[in-house]
């Protein structure tokens, strides 16, 4: 009996039961709530048991399970066996289900009139995730004859300590957005358009924190391990966690406005639905295979795209449908959004966030969009930087101004004369910038808008002088350090402005208790991080050099000498480079080795850290005339050879001539006491010259491929498991060396921001608990 499948079924059926019971309870039948809670607990127990079963199967290396055979191997270290749980799609769906269910367990314990109804809506995604684990779970058994002796192991790219923690954090983020969605849904059903705010706030803040933790961890991983040369590559998977976050941050601020002033009711419902929709849309894009050619880590197609698409449509229809149905019923705010008040600026900030989300979504959907007009193509990552930089400037300006002004301020002091004066200042500075040699439209427009804003703020607002001084100082420092382009200069200036303004408000807030300063502290963190991002990604110097062994070469003023390869018993070789830098002499040892699993080079950069910058040495590859040794299995007709525990016998070729020539090798393979036929093939298109090598699979997940055919002797060369295959080893090492100025600001800002956001979660949680206690006393 397959326990995993059994537990999945229990969870799925219990989920259906719980959904129906909660529906009845929300409909007014109080007696149904208890059975609903019990069924929900059973559902959670089912997911938990299925999870434990999967881990048990993985650790037991029970290769009868396809999932285990695909993602572990006998000699894999324990923490990677642990991580191989989420090495494949089926496992991640189970993880997603378990985390969503666990969060629901917490929601269920909160005493609030909306909770039982919210539990029904939370069970909607849960039932769908349960359905996937039942239909396409990680518990598929291989037919008895196909059980391998050893598994293929986890992809070496994923064999990193970060892999043990990064995916669960990210999935907690994705799952957590289901809770505000569920709360918003029941609020719409119950026509309780304000009561849900307090219940949703701690959850929304939690999502903000945990999603940011997830993608910042991903950034650290990319920077330290993957060696992409940066922490952020606008890869679809990164964008997929970033856009729901943007929408969720917009929701967080909308809820604050609604709590303080009673406005923005409709857009808050819209954002609660949209945040979850974006999670599902991003999952669809990255997992369904539509981007398979365009992303570094999209999962290969698993036939789940249909499911994800219907999941997405169900959530959209239910979410937006219910909102449209109630739209006219939602009361307008008692007082209009102020003209130049804190809430109106926060509303503008939401707009900026949603525009960013929309433009990033368009970018990551480019292969889908361009497919409508012609061949699918992707946007360059420069697209994201181009569109986000001006929006980030606008956001920083709002972030600096909003905390300094009051709620519900109806009048503004930007009178006609002052506005003209501010505009005049903008025109003058823009003209100067243009004379200094900037002739593109966008930077000039940005300059005009930014200078106008600062001038208007300086003329019409009190108490901004310190922040403005800091901003101008930061801009001057940036220019002195070599920033010549107005857009990044304006971004640094705006971020410094936001930093100074929020620091003032933070300190003022702390005087009346920690609760009143932490939200602004999160803003200071975000501003510091932005400055770090501009500096480290835009103003690093980079050079690619080729290093013949033993010869010193110069790059960026650093003298580099490739000293040789340090062989590692685990096969993870490091290249040794002596670096003579003005700051310090050091020995860099980035990893560079051939991975038979990925048929590609695995690389890990060397990072030499300094207070103001990092030196980043990223190996590219070994090149050179030396073509390197080949480790192939050569067989003549009728010959038998043994590699490891496996015996290969080559019988004969099958040939097929035509425009496409196909040569297949008929083999008999003795593996694990059985003999199976194998027939790898070589396909050559005579027109284009394109060769295609079609492997055949062995029981156990290994494969046999024809590397080469010798027509004269009738021999065949095979790539088989256990041999190195076709390695290319040269004697010239190509590396990219770059500097990352002020990278420490990125990490400092990130820690400051995340720490504060989790304190906000605590604060909103305490508020909610206090309210629940007060309600209990009244009742």
């Amino acid at each position, binding site marked *: 009996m397959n326990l995993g499948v059994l537990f999945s079924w229990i969870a799925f059926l219990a989920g259906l039961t719980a959904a129906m019971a909660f529906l009845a309870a929300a409909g007014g039948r109080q007696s149904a709530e208890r059975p609903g809670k019990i069924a929900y607990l059973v559902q959670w127990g089912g997911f938990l048991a299925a999870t434990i079963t999967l881990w048990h199967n993985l650790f037991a290396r029970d290769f009868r399970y396809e999932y285990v055979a695909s993602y572990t191997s006998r000699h894999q270290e324990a923490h990677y066996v642990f991580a191989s749980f989420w090495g494949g799609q089926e496992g991640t769906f189970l993880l997603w289900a378990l985390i969503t269910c666990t969060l629901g367990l917490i929601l269920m314990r909160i005493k609030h009139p909306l909770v039982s109804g919210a539990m029904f809506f939370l069970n909607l995604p849960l039932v769908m995730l349960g359905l996937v684990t039942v239909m396409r779970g990680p518990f598929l058994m291989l037919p008895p004859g196909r059980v391998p002796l050893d598994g293929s192991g986890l992809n070496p790219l994923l064999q990193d300590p970060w892999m043990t923690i990064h995916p669960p954090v990210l999935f907690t983020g994705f799952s957590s957005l289901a809770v505000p969605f569920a709360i918003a849904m029941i609020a719409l059903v119950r026509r309780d358009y304000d009561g849900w705010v307090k219940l949703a706030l701690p959850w929304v803040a939690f999502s903000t924190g945990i999603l940011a933790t997830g993608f910042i961890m991903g950034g650290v991983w990319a920077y330290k391990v993957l060696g992409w040369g940066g922490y952020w590559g606008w890869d679809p998977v990164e964008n997929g966690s970033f856009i729901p976050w943007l929408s969720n941050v917009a929701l967080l601020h909308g809820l604050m406005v609604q709590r303080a002033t009673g406005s923005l009711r409709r857009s808050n419902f819209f954002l609660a639905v949209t945040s979850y929709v974006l999670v599902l849309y991003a999952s669809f894009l990255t997992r369904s295979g539509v981007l398979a050619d365009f992303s570094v880590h999209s999962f290969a197609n698993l036939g789940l795209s249909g499911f994800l698409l219907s999941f997405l449509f169900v959530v959209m229809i239910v979410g937006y449908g219910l909102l449209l149905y109630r739209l006219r019923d939602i009361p307008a705010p008692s007082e209009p959004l102020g003209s130049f008040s804190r809430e109106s600026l926060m509303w503008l900030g939401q707009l900026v966030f949603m525009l960013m989300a929309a433009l990033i979504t368009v970018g990551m959907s480019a292969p889908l969009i361009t497919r409508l007009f012609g061949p699918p193509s992707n946007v360059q990552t420069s697209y994201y930087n181009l569109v986000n930089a001006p929006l980030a400037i606008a956001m920083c300006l709002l972030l600096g101004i909003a905390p300094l002004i009051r709620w519900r301020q109806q009048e503004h002091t930007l009178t006609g004369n002052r506005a003209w004066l501010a505009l005049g200042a903008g025109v003058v500075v823009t003209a100067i910038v243009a004379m200094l040699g900037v002739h593109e439209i966008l930077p000039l427009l940005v300059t005009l808008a930014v200078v106008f804003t600062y001038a208007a703020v300086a003329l019409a607002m009190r108490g901004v002088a310190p922040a403005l001084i800091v901003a101008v100082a930061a801009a001057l420092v940036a220019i002195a350090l070599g920033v010549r382009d107005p857009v990044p200069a304006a971004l640094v200036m705006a971020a410094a402005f936001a930093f100074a303004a929020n620091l003032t408000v933070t300190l003022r807030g702390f005087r009346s208790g920690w609760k009143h300063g932490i939200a602004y502290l999160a803003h200071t963190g975000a501003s510091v991080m932005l400055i770090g991002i501009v500096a480290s990604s835009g103003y690093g110097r980079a050079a690619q050099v080729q290093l013949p062994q033993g010869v010193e070469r110069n790059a960026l003023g650093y003298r580099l000498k490739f000293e040789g390869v340090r062989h590692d018993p685990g096969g993870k070789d490091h290249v040794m480079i002596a670096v003579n830098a003005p700051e310090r002499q050091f020995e860099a040892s980035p990893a560079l080795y051939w991975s038979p699993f990925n048929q590609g080079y695995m690389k890990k950069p060397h990072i030499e850290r300094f207070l103001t910058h990092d030196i980043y040495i990223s190996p590219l*590859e070994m090149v050179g005339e030396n073509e390197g040794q080949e480790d192939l299995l050569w067989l003549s007709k009728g010959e038998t050879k043994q590699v490891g525990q496996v015996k290969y016998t080559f019988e004969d070729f099958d040939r097929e001539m035509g425009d496409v020539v196909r040569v297949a090798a008929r083999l008999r393979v003795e593996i694990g006491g059985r003999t199976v036929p194998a027939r790898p093939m070589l396909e050559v298109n005579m027109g284009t010259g394109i060769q295609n090598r079609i*492997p055949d699979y062995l029981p156990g997940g290994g494969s046999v491929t024809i590397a080469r055919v010798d027509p004269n002797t009738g021999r065949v060369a095979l790539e088989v498991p256990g041999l190195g295959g076709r390695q290319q080893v040269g004697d010239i090492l190509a590396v990219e060396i770059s500097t990352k100025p002020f990278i420490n600001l990125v990490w400092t800002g990130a820690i400051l921001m995340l720490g504060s956001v989790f304190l906000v979660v605590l604060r909103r949680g305490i508020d909610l608990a206090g309210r629940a206690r007060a309600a209990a006393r009244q009742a």
Partner: protein
Amino acid sequence: MNIKAILAVVLLIAAVAIGVTSFRKSVTPYISFTEARRASGLVQVNGVLADKNYVLKRDEQFLEFKLKDSKNEVLPVVYRGVIPGNFDQAVSIVAIGHYQQDHFEAEQLLVKCPSKYQALAEKEARSS
């Protein structure tokens, strides 16, 4: 009309304008060699190595070769940068760049090798 509404409209128009121009600027479609010769801006072409008569100077990071597409059209390509080690075994070469006078100046070279090609096929075969 109050300040807030004006600002919102300005933001919206600016974002859409920036979005559309940036999208058109940075999307690099796969196009034919004939189109590549006419196109301005960054484009993407793909094909196979036309012959083995290429000029390769690793130390100077200079590579000049002829790319042949499925219609047997030939495009001379120049690339300056770190040259992929397995360049001459490529079954398919993607060049991103722009056409200049008499040749295609590649800023980026993506090389699909038979082995990588097969790893992909292997992955697909395993998951289906």
